[in-house]
């Protein structure tokens, strides 16, 4: 393969643009500081991007299932899993594994409830996950009771540990993302998810168990949200009732900016990392240049709209 063909193939990858944009924003940021803090900015970006990538992967699998599939219960699940896990662990190092299992069980339970609602009531996933998120949020509020319990020291150390400036947690999640990309591309399950998103009727006729595949995707999304809540409560010194809030919009934004199709059937995992880094670096850049919270929100919103408009130009309307 010659260089030109390689470049052309690379340019055809929609996720590439997220990385190009992330690097560009990073360069503009360190331009302002004259190169100082370049490494620290990257470390911070990887640290914070990690959490949104975890939920982004789950959201992406759900979105891949086709139009109307989206998980709105992610923030509530993060909050519930964080609250339950910190309470179970009760600052004891010996309970770290139990906490992890409980957080994942929380997620699995939410996912099962979500899909049960979709399946039993035959309602759009948006409404199903919306109504269950109300219940989960309430459960988290009632359970958490506002008392902030510290995470076990070992968990806190692990979530903040660094290896040559690279957060250990980020490395773990990069590996997880790679695995999930393989699952999407190389396994039967991943191909099923994509096939359902492209044409659910054709998928059914081809003999795919649509119900079970969708069920697994919703459970996966909720389990990742539970994992995110567990790690986030370790990272930020305990769980709080609002800790999941920002991840609803962020998780959807990652899928879009990462170059996955919102209509489903065409997704990629690498774009999630690029998009997460990009979104965080934009905020850092605006901070560096002295803009306030208002400008940061404004820029984030305009970027999301610009990306989706640009993506529609790339893929002509059906």
């Amino acid at each position, binding site marked *: 393969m010659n260089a030109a063909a390689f470049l052309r193939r690379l340019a055809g990858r929609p996720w590439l643009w997220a990385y190009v944009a992330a690097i560009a924003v990073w360069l503009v940021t360190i331009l302002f500081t004259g190169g100082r803090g370049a490494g620290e900015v990257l470390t911070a970006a990887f640290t914070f991007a990690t959490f949104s990538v975890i939920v982004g992967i789950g959201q992406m699998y759900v979105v891949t299932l086709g139009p*109307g599939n989206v998980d709105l219960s992610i923030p509530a699940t993060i909050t519930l899993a964080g609250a339950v896990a910190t309470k179970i662990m009760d600052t004891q190092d010996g309970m770290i594994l139990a906490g992890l299992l409980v957080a994942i069980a929380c997620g699995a339970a939410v996912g099962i409830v979500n899909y049960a609602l979709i399946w039993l009531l035959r309602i759009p996933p948006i409404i199903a996950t*919306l109504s269950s998120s109300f219940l989960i949020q309430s459960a988290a509020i*009632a359970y958490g009771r506002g008392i902030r319990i510290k995470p076990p020291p070992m968990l806190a150390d692990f979530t903040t540990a660094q290896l040559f400036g690279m957060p250990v947690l980020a490395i773990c999640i990069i590996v997880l993302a790679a695995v999930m990309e393989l699952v999407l591309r190389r396994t039967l399950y991943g191909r099923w998810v994509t096939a359902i998103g492209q044409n659910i009727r054709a998928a059914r006729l081809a003999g795919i168990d649509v119900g079970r595949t969708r069920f697994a995707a919703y459970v996966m999304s909720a389990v990742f949200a539970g994992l995110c809540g567990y790690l986030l409560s370790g990272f930020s010194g305990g769980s709080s009732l609002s800790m999941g809030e920002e991840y609803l919009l962020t998780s959807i934004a990652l899928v879009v900016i990462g170059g996955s199709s*919102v209509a489903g059937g065409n997704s990629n995992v690498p774009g999630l990392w690029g998009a997460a880094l990009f979104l965080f670096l934009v905020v850092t850049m605006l901070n560096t240049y002295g803009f306030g*919270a208002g400008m940061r929100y404004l820029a984030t*919103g305009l*970027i999301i709209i610009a990306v989706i408009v640009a993506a*529609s130009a790339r893929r002509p309307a059906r």
Partner: protein
Amino acid sequence: MTGTSFARNLRMLLPAISLVVLLVAIYALQPRAISYVGFNLMLNLAIPIALATIAQMCVITVNDLDLSIGTYVGFVACVGATMLTGGVAALPLVKDLQASGALPAVLPWIMQTPLAGVVVLAFGILVYAALGALIHWRNLPSIVVTLGMSFVWLGLSVLILPVPGGQAPAWIRQMMTLKPAFIPFPIIAAIVIAVIAHILLMRTSYGAVLRGAGGNPKAIERAGWSLLRVKAAMFALAGFFGMLAGLSLVGLTTSGDANIALRYTLLSIAGVILGGGEFVGGRISPVGAVMGAATLTLAGSMLSFMRISPDWQIGAQGAILIVVLAARTLIDRAERNR
């Protein structure tokens, strides 16, 4: 055949039935709540929620979804608490500039007129219309576009009002605290909202076109209507009702806050669905949507009468949503089995 029409009627009456069941339950728990003062207290906040629900319904009619309505209502509230009261001069930013001496202490008329607020609110509706046009023109997923817009509105609100504050115009405050004879104001307001939205969308000929654009866009286009214009009109209508929601909310709270209405996004979707609306096909019910909003608001009161901690208020809303949807599924199934 009577069975089928019975099921259909039952389905149509479901929003009203759920509202009545809730009211009866509240009466059983606390008879004094069903009174002039009681309704005023319980349903005050139903007015902005009902308006936001109607706004969301307009967008759902054309098979789209508005994830930005909550922050948009917050944006309107911020504008209402500042520029609609004292013009540009009421902005904290301008006040800071005055304090630092960059601007004179006495500002010219043009900077004090509430007209600035009117212009900004009209701009908001224009943005909504433009979004509708953009979504149709480029065939964009509305969820993503409005997701982006939710950040934009939040950013603008924070720029207008960095910290909660400001003051709602006196006329809005007076209107929201009206005490008409016999019938509490929130009930009158709810009926007026429902009737206007019903006439607009269900009784006018262009309303039929607007709903048709959700049900069968191709047919509407072949009949010579511009789908672009329909979508822009529906989004503009959503912007208009969203604006009313923000203004009525700021009239109740008397001060603005960028985060004041974040929950409205999800509540409004829940209200539309509770009221019998559907995500696709232009099947909506304005009267049902207002009832849905009232039901969601009353769920909170019901819990406090049952002495259940307010922690569960959101949960109760979710539970009601699930119960009503389950009832609807059962009715549908009964209809099909006949």
